[in-house]
């Protein structure tokens, strides 16, 4: 293996040979990402109905299934119905704190086995148990940290109480979100990502961010589209109206 200094020195030498190249600039960055993010949030606080409608269209275009409930209490019955229809017996969910509600009681009443993650329990034993639960679940319930209307995308931050596999291992993924998550454009996502990374350890407790745009898919065999290759076959988004 080459030493870092030598590796970079070689590149520097090559770069130095190319002075006088065409002037080119990188993308403009918000000078105050936090303030820019706040401004976007204020804008979306007004525009959320349009953003939501756009999201629904784009989400459905990528085969997402959209639901709308008046309050967060109305979400668990919808989740239960989805589980019933898909013949799911085991459900895994994020920590209720991360979800903003606790679906476990309602789901358990429907006869579903619910494995809810608890933030703050990251022992090796907890890891092993969680992996088994996630692998055995047919349905996973998460929140969504950002919901992008332009492309029908759910953006999930991993972290304490919000494991990565909840939206990955089960056949069905259900994401529950409210109006405060909506964003309209990829450009706005860029601002949010800039803001998040100003002090990332404060903004998030995890190392992964996943953009999820519809179910897992492939067209590797004769360009025929199939879903549910490794990730979920179905993605549901439940919008909770009440702010």
């Amino acid at each position, binding site marked *: 293996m080459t030493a870092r200094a030598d590796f970079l020195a070689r590149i520097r030498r090559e770069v130095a040979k190319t002075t006088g190249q065409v002037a080119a600039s990188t993308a403009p960055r918000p000078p105050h990402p936090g303030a820019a993010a706040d401004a976007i949030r204020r804008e979306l606080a007004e525009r959320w109905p349009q953003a939501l409608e756009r999201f629904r269209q784009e989400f459905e275009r990528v085969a997402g299934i959209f639901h709308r409930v008046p309050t967060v209490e109305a979400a668990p019955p919808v989740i239960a119905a989805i589980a019933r229809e898909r013949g799911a017996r085991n459900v895994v969910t994020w920590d209720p704190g991360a979800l903003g509600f606790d679906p476990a009681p309602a789901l358990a009443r429907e006869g579903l086995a619910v494995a809810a993650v608890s933030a703050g329990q990251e022992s090796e034993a907890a890891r092993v148990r969680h992996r088994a639960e996630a692998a055995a679940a047919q349905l996973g319930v998460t929140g969504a940290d950002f919901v992008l209307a332009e492309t029908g995308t759910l953006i999930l931050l991993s972290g304490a109480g919000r494991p990565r596999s909840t939206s990955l291992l089960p056949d069905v993924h259900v994401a529950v979100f409210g109006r405060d998550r909506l964003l309209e454009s990829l450009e706005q996502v860029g601002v949010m990502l800039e803001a998040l990374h100003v002090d990332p350890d404060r903004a998030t407790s995890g190392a992964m961010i996943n953009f999820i745009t519809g179910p897992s898919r492939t067209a*590797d065999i004769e360009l025929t589209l199939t879903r549910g290759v490794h990730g979920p076959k179905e993605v549901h988004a439940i919008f909770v109206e009440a702010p």
Partner: protein
Amino acid sequence: MSDAALRTPFPERASAALKDGFLQEALTIATTKFIDLRRESFAGFPQGEALRDQARAIKEATLQRLDAHLDRLADNVERLGGVVHWATTAEEAREIVLRLARDRGVRMAVKSKSMATEEIDLNEALEHAGITPIETDLGEYIIQLAHEKPSHIIAPAIHKTKGQVAELFSRELRGQFPADPEVLTAVARQALREKFLQADMGITGANFAVADTGTVVLVTNEGNGRMVTSLPRIHVAIMGIEKVIPSMSDLVVFLAILARSATGQKLSSYTTLVRGPRRAGELEGPEEFHLVLLDNGRSRQIASTLREALYCLRCGACLNVCPVYRQIGGHAYGHTYPGPIGILLTAMLKGNESVRELAHASSLCGACKDVCPVRIDIPRMLIELREHLDRDKIAPWGERVVFRAFRRLLMSEPAFRLSARAGRLLQRPFVRGGRLRGLPLLFGRWTRTRDLPPVAARTFRERWKDLR
């Protein structure tokens, strides 16, 4: 492609591809579909053109300070608890991964699709060391089982029919599977799910790495990219140095156009941002994150004519529109990277001699440049490559003699006129029905399949006096 196969001259490999009926049909269907998807996607995306310009500018700007960005990337990755490795050559990169795997007792590694790992022949090295690499991208899984190489940058098994895949799965996975993509996908899902959960190591490439934050970005559709970076205890990402970009603001510019260019999607199903190993509060995620930065001939191009090839996003759009690729497919090119950009990348990674024949595998039609998301001027660089082949005397001596003679002819109008007259005389035995057929030597290559118009009884310049 094996060295033995590479000893077959490229024109012969191309001919064999032309005669492969399955391949021809598969290529037509797949490339046509990709072309339509991309066109539709950009048709409904008026900002697309400006974003392509911006993406190209970002790549150029990044190259102008590449060392600084890589330095910053490394600092940030290390700050997060990741380890950065610096691989000048393919061999070094292989060694790094092998040593890591051996030291950590890795027996099985799951891989997400990575052209960089193909480029360095990582799988073979792992297998020789007794470590099992499992390709998990469906297309890569298929070709791994078939002991083949990928034939397209983003759709590796594009050359296989569903019947061939069914036969392959039935044989290798010991079952009886119908030629139904849904069924076959489900078979792969089940077979690979176990592997994800049991693997010791996950190996990926990287579509981008954000210097500002130490984030590695994977653009995928199947979910295997997420599995491989969350379930095994070690994640190794192998990345060409040219993939670094400065900031998150730059990232979203590329995300806006990459999937559209590759498959016509607005975004791929999954875009995964990995910032080091798992954090303290996480139940899942690797304990270790390793980033292998790969040079393998790239830095040498920063100050050369192939510089623009370093902008490449590996989207495959140029393959889909290339009249040559569409006829012969990826394997005939004989190297890791096929298609228009593949010729440039091969020259970059293996030297000009390696593209002695491939540099001419292009009609210079320019369709590739038209669709490249970062507007790489591939035809221009192919011409430059050809210039290097002449300058460095790699082009065959006979060819160089012919072209020099041709120039002398063009520099003298009397000589030019004389050759026309000579042509008129010499062609007589071959004129049939006002067309030339069955010509000998070089011209025979034309007349085997096409007529030639004969040298006119009176050339234009001879008729000019009557028109004057």
